[in-house]
């Protein structure tokens, strides 16, 4: 199967400070990320705060410019496109942001918000435009009567529905969902997740689902990428990750999620220390200072992401 989106050696460094006499600091948000996303799948990306998962989502659709690397969308390198062409291509891939209170212009009503992508990319105007907006709103579970209301009049869940309607207005093939449920109440999270699942089946969408919530990712993803300090450390199907995690970090991460059964006990892996600063990542494997299985080689050599069978990729010296 051909990948819909391929990222190769995707790297993003943010420069901080500078000034006259301060050393320029570089935040290594994303380092040498290779990723294939296949049509129709949901690829979940998990990791702690600051591990670069949001940066990955934004670089993939070129909302921020990667420092290095390539992103192929249907075989076309997005990073080589000029601004006008990129703008046209954007109707193919959309994004839903974490906080709908911030991602919707407070001065626009729902009609303005949802028709914005349609006005930008299509010739729909007047009646036809309003019809399309109504159709979209109804599809995401809102009603006609909401058309002339403003963002501050809605709850978080409703706002996220509006944001989803905006993202789907142009029938994209690929949607980056950047923690679309983490600003919402638990009960609303489930509604939004189910809506996203339904829409995926109905419209044949491909998702990149970014989250720090393992249970959410498990629920929605076909494949999962685990990130640590700007790198993908493990990549496999949801099944492979959850029942056969090979990377020590993934194992530790999984052991931290509470089990729904109060009687069940599991051995928790407590990682010592904190995540190292991406300003100054450790040499070798970036996880080695906290790893409970570290080898001497981990401190010197950076492990590559290798296939351990059935397209299950792990970056660890322990795993051969």
């Amino acid at each position, binding site marked *: 199967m051909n990948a819909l989106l391929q990222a190769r050696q995707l790297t993003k460094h943010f420069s901080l400070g500078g000034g006259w006499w301060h050393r320029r600091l570089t935040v290594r948000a994303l380092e040498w990320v290779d990723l294939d996303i296949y049509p129709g799948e949901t690829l979940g990306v998990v990791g702690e705060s600051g591990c670069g998962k949001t940066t990955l989502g934004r670089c993939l659709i070129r909302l921020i410019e990667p420092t290095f690397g390539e992103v192929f969308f249907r075989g076309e390198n997005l990073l080589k496109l000029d601004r006008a062409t990129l703008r046209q291509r954007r109707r193919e891939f959309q*994004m839903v942001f974490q906080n709908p209170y911030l991602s919707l212009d407070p001065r626009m009503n729902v009609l303005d918000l949802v028709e914005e992508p349609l006005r*930008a990319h299509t010739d729909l105007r007047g009646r036809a435009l309003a019809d399309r907006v109504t159709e979209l709103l109804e599809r995401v579970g809102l009603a006609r009567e909401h058309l002339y209301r403003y963002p501050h009049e809605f709850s978080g869940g409703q706002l996220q529905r509006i944001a989803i309607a905006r993202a789907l207005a142009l029938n994209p093939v690929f949607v980056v969902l950047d923690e679309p449920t983490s600003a919402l109440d638990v009960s609303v999270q489930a509604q939004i997740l189910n809506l996203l699942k339904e829409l995926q089946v109905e419209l044949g969408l491909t998702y990149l689902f970014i989250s720090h919530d393992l249970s959410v990712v498990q629920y929605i993803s076909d494949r999962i990428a685990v990130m640590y300090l700007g790198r993908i450390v493990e990549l496999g199907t949801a099944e492979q990750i959850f029942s056969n995690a090979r990377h020590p970090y993934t194992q530790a991460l999984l052991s931290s999620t509470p089990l729904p059964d109060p009687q069940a006990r599991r051995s928790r892996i407590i990682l010592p220390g904190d995540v190292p600063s991406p300003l100054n990542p450790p040499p070798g494997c970036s996880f080695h200072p906290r790893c409970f299985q570290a080898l001497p080689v981990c401190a010197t050599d950076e492990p590559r992401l290798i296939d351990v069978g059935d397209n299950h990729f792990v970056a660890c010296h322990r795993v051969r």
Partner: protein
Amino acid sequence: MIPFGQAVGEWARERQPLWAEYGLMLRAFRRDWLALVSLSIIIAFIFFAAFAPWLTPYPEQGRGVPNIAERFQPPSRLHPLGTDDLGRDLWARICFGGRTSLSIGFLVVVIAVLIGTPLGAIAGFFGGWVDEVIMRLTDIFLAFPSLLLAIAIAAALGPSFTNAMVAIALTWWPWYTRLVRAQTLSLRERTFIEAARGIGVKEGTIIFRHILPNVMTPVLVQATMDIGSAILTGAAMSFIGLGVQPPTADWGQMVSVGRVYFINAPWFVTFPGLAIFLVSLAFNLLGDSIRDIADPRTRRAVR
């Protein structure tokens, strides 16, 4: 009594399109008595200025014909606000002066906003060399004391009412550029702007649909506060002979002439000063209310 625990039905909340939104603005405006008072004051001044020849007892004096016999008359039945140094009725002079002062105050600010706001939005949004060029240009204008610059421009253009107005506006726009640029810089980083980019909205459209509506609040407040200062600057220009030419009335000019006679004829300086004060105050308060009404969030707030 409404039965406990029984749904009474959906609130019918469907709202009609645009005109309903305007209706809401009007309702919010009507609830705001300060705004109503301010608007009435402004309308009253405009009304008296517009119909000055019919509303004043001595229209020819309002236009500048002297009446030396009645110099420095205190307020009386004949001259409700007294007379000035050439014996002209102050009521007539203030009504006629409103024509020049109100237009200077209003037009200067409008021109300055029209030049300054787009430039500031462009500078802040695009950044880089565009920002650099625009901001250095504003720096050049701001480097001169503004009154001196206005005087220089007016002197170059020749003394007249229009030229004075243009000259003042040309020294005024950089303030709006800086204000709007600063606002735009912070707006640019907001997620909803990033979202618009992600959707593929053109940059010009982003400026018009997202940046400008969101920077209008501080601009509006600043603009209404500036109307009073613009009237005063116009007065300063008239005072040194570059603005409104003498027989024509102008509040600022009346204040500058009248202050010399403050001890003996306090009414001469007080009434035109009061006019400037009232107009500035009214525009200020009105601007405050418009800011609240223009924002869909505060528009709906129940007072």
